[in-house]
């Protein structure tokens, strides 16, 4: 074995009922290396990480850690004690505890047997300021945005003396400048000899910071490559197991033009979280919302759908005025809303794929009109096929699906209600390229069917490929709109977001 190997896994097997999640997977991490773990949704990345950190029990194989020999992590705490820290894709903090309590949970600094609160707050503040974050560390975590929460989770992970740091999709809720900060922290740790496992879907980021890539596909190892030996196109084709059709061609897939008829019209709407705005969407039109995190993108669509009650203005959907704050009415008027936070607002974890998919339609139909069993099964099977959802069966609890597949189920949930107008808030976050392309194609298909769409994404390119008009958001306010071929490009959108040339 090489000298500087800090972590070595071999012959890893893990099976869930009906799914072989990992088969004979090997993985090697060296000191002072940033190692990307790549693969599509359901390829086994998260499972491999969870096996490593003791969340799941191994079915077979062994894990070697430098200085410890062969180890068995029975729990994340074991892993932590062995020097393996993890930041998960979904934020895993205790929302009602303070920031410093979250950071130092289980290893609070003590003085005379009691928790030394002063030192704890002080250390937390220092730690966060090293990540360029200046917040009140005594406030409860739930007061902060997902992005900040993610940074807190990262701060917690790097604050422990770790030899191996696992970052499982840490950047999916961060904006560009935050990603930069994270990268500088990563490079810093790397120079101290920490081995970092980096799981992400963003190819850019992989090529920006990583030294090596391990690719998984369908629970099997495809291979390990030094970054310079694996150009992007090859990486993608290795992940997919086929050659990818060019993303850029998507835009030309539109067969129809947006109609003159307005499907949704929000007039002087404002809520507690967003300043007054106007926006309309025509039938067959895809409107994007561009802005930094926290610029009010999500809050704007929540006010339209009624997830947050608007305290002024009117929303009209298909010429019908919709009472605000009543989501059932919005639904019945033909709206659909795919929320940003899939875990909190989207999935109903313990319920099956079938129930998760049918719930919206069932609510729309009313409690006493239960969709009969046969129709239920037909609907669900159809959408599992159309969206290629990877699930053991339609009765599998949605929580055991991978993130991307969960998202597809939520998407199917809304498609089943046959909406006139769809709000998609970050539908592609944490999803692999293949599925991203599928979702983008799907968005264009909705538009061709005459539906109106509002599409929010942190990736401007993705919106440029699908949208014919873009609303610009800045500091909790809609500040303008861009349309026309000549204005819809990355640089002009960036400029608009930033507020001019300055």
């Amino acid at each position: 074995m090489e000298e500087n190997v800090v972590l070595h896994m071999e012959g890893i097997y893990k099976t869930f009922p009906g799914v072989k999640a990992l088969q004979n997977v090997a993985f090697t991490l060296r000191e002072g290396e940033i190692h990307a773990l790549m693969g599509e949704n359901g390829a086994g990345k998260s499972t491999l990480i969870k096996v490593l950190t003791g969340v799941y029990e191994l079915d077979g194989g062994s894990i070697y850690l430098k200085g410890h020999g062969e180890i068995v992590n029975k729990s994340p705490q074991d892993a932590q004690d062995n020097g393996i820290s993890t930041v998960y894709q979904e934020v895993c903090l205790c929302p009602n505890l303070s920031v410093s309590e979250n950071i130092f949970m289980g290893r609070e600094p003590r003085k005379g047997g009691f928790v030394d609160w002063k030192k704890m707050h002080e250390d937390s503040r220092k730690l966060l300021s090293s990540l360029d974050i200046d917040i009140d560390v005594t406030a409860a975590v739930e007061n902060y945005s997902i992005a900040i929460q993610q940074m807190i989770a990262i701060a917690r992970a790097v604050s422990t003396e770790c030899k191996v740091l696992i970052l499982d999709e840490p950047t999916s809720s961060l904006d560009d400048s935050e990603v930069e900060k994270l990268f500088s922290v990563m490079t810093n740790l790397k120079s101290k000899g920490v081995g970092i496992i980096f799981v992400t879907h963003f190819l850019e980021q992989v090529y920006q910071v990583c030294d090596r890539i391990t690719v998984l596909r369908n629970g099997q190892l495809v291979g390990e490559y030094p970054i310079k030996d694996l150009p992007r196109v090859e990486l993608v084709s290795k992940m997919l197991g086929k050659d990818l059709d060019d993303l850029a061609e998507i835009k030309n897939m539109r067969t129809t033009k947006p109609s003159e008829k307005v499907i949704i019209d929000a007039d002087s709407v404002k809520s507690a979280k967003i300043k007054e705005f106007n926006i309309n969407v025509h039938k067959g039109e895809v409107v994007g919302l561009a802005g930094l995190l926290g610029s009010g993108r999500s809050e704007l669509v929540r006010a339209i759908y009624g997830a947050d009650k608007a305290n002024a203005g009117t929303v009209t959907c298909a010429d019908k005025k919709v009472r605000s704050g009543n989501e059932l009415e919005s639904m019945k008027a033909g709206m659909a809303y795919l929320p940003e936070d899939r875990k909190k607002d989207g999935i109903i974890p313990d319920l099956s794929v079938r129930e998760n998919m049918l719930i919206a339609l069932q609510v729309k139909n009313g409690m006493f009109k239960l969709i009969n069993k046969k129709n239920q099964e037909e609907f669900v099977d159809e959408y599992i096929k159309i969206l290629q959802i990877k699930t053991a069966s339609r009765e599998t609890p949605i929580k055991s699906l991978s993130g991307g597949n969960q998202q597809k189920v939520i998407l199917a949930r809304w498609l089943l209600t046959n909406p006139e107008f769809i709000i998609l808030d970050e539908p592609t976050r944490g999803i692999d390229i293949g599925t991203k392309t599928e979702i983008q194609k799907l968005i264009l298909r909705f538009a061709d069917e005459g539906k109106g769409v509002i599409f929010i994404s942190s990736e401007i390119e993705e919106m440029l490929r699908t949208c014919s008009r873009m609303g610009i958001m800045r500091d909790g306010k809609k500040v303008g709109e861009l349309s026309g071929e000549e204005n819809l490009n990355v640089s002009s959108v960036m400029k608009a977001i930033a507020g001019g040339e300055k």
Partner: protein
Amino acid sequence: MNGDLKSRLGKIVHYKLFLPLFCLFLVLMVNVITTPDFFHVEIRNGVLYGRPVDIINRASELVILAVGMTLVVAASAGTDISVGAVMAVTAAVTTFFLSGGEISVNEYQFPLFPAILLGIGAGALCGAWNGFLVAKMRIQPMVATLILYTAGRGIAQLITKGQITYIRVDSYQYIGNFLPGVPIPTPVFISIAVVILVQLFVKKTAFGLFVESVGVNKEASKHVGLKSVMIIFATYVFCGVLSGIAGIVASSRIYSADANNIGLNLELDAILAVALGGNSLGGGRFSILGSIIGAYTIQALTTTLYAIGVSADQIPVYKAIVVVIIVSLQSPEFQRYVRKFRKKLEAKKAIGEVTA
């Protein structure tokens, strides 16, 4: 052939109600060993007589309560600890109307059916109050229902003026005892009817799905248009109505309203029944059948202990011991041990085969 049997056995073992059923079976087995004539049933004076009949009969109120409790737990991730007190309120209201305010009557002062409906209505009102506090005011279920838990019996005492109201009319006793010419106790029919009706309502409408959805993720349920306040409220009203029915049965058994003793400590058994049935007290997924099995298990246990000759005041201790065993049997940690043990056995067997 052998393999086929094995896979079928495997299926049975993995059936989600297997463990609750297995526990009930265990309790009954203990009886068979200690009291060989336990399952002996005969007809005496034209009615069925025997321990099994006694268990099924005595469990009726608990079964009815457990059904309501299951829904409350599923939707609100909390328990309604006022059900026993609500039983007392219902009994007091019904007997108050039947007796016209007297302490003891030999004939109805008010028609029977409207009086029963009024009693159940009082139960519904109690449920609505609990539901209002939990769903609308967002008070923790245990705290919210603690109010009626303590005040309920007081209200019942107020209605009965602190006396035990006796209704010495035969037809009132039919509900809790026997209908003329029918060998099976009436509470058995009532509990079966309640179970079937609720089960039909839960499965043939989307109510069950909505309750589970709200119980698992309120926020996500809101975004698909579900009104969690209404759904949680409905489960508490349901629970109140069912407590009312249980209260009438209990009152009819003793043809009176004993505000201090009707349904005493039954709320704890009802919660336990839900848990024994394999339901999570954290809300979400539920099985009414599981809770019913739990209810019969508890009653079987109580009857068993009486049969062995344990005195009434010591029963809780023995009950607690058995409950600890049953709950541990069903815990995921114990099941992990079993799986590991089985794997080891298999490995040993494989080695044995190789060396042989």
